[in-house]
């Protein structure tokens, strides 16, 4: 990874998009893993160089890289069985706080994004219904809220 520039953000002053950003691990401001950069969208501007508009994450984006048919299949599966409200999570480039050789940090909270929809669903529909271990006197180990 090239040297870091004094640009107020921890972003190197030279980037190779495929090498440095695509498939990079994404973390939130607390460094919670959110997934990987599956897509990168460039905005084409008249008379000015293209700029990175946003990064995309999601199985549909990853599937599109392999084939449009697979993208449609994955999106159909998501609509039928998925719990995510959106097919792809888009993070604007302005949310990128830091880019290193091992992660891309976003200035967001992972729990507030659709990337954690599955975790929230599992918590509400599965984990919550798992019986808690009993104490010796037959009471539940923790108080119910």
């Amino acid at each position: 990874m090239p040297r870091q520039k004094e640009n107020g953000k921890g972003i190197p002053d030279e980037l190779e998009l495929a090498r440095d950003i695509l498939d990079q691990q994404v973390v939130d401001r607390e460094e919670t893993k959110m997934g990987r950069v599956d897509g990168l969208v460039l905005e084409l501007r008249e008379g000015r160089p293209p700029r990175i508009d946003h990064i995309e994450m999601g199985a549909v984006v990853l599937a599109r890289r392999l084939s449009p048919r697979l993208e449609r299949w994955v999106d159909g599966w998501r609509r039928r069985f998925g719990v995510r409200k959106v097919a792809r999570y888009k993070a604007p480039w302005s949310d990128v706080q830091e880019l290193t050789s091992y992660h891309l940090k976003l200035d967001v909270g992972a729990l507030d994004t659709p990337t954690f929809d599955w975790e929230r669903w599992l918590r509400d529909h599965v984990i919550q219904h798992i019986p808690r271990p009993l104490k010796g006197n037959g009471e539940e180990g923790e108080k119910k809220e």
Partner: protein
Amino acid sequence: MKTVHFELLLGRKVHDSEGRRVGRILEVHAEPEGKDCVVREYLLGTAALLTRLGISAERLLGLPVHREPVRVPWDQMDLSDPERPRLRCSVEELTRNK
């Protein structure tokens, strides 16, 4: 707003203004500019995937490889049809302007 998906550009064949094949998009070089990150140049090679993996016939035979990617400034690349990227000039003009 016209946008292109970078991941779908990778490996696309690029032709010059005279219709001759120049190579495939291997990489895109970008730099931060204020709050943005802007594209400076596109790197084209002959065997995109194999080159990215560091594989080539020369390497397999143990011969030294000196193949440099073709560097295309952002303003010489026409992405109006992202499935068929084209140079706005010929390969000769591109190498002459270096």
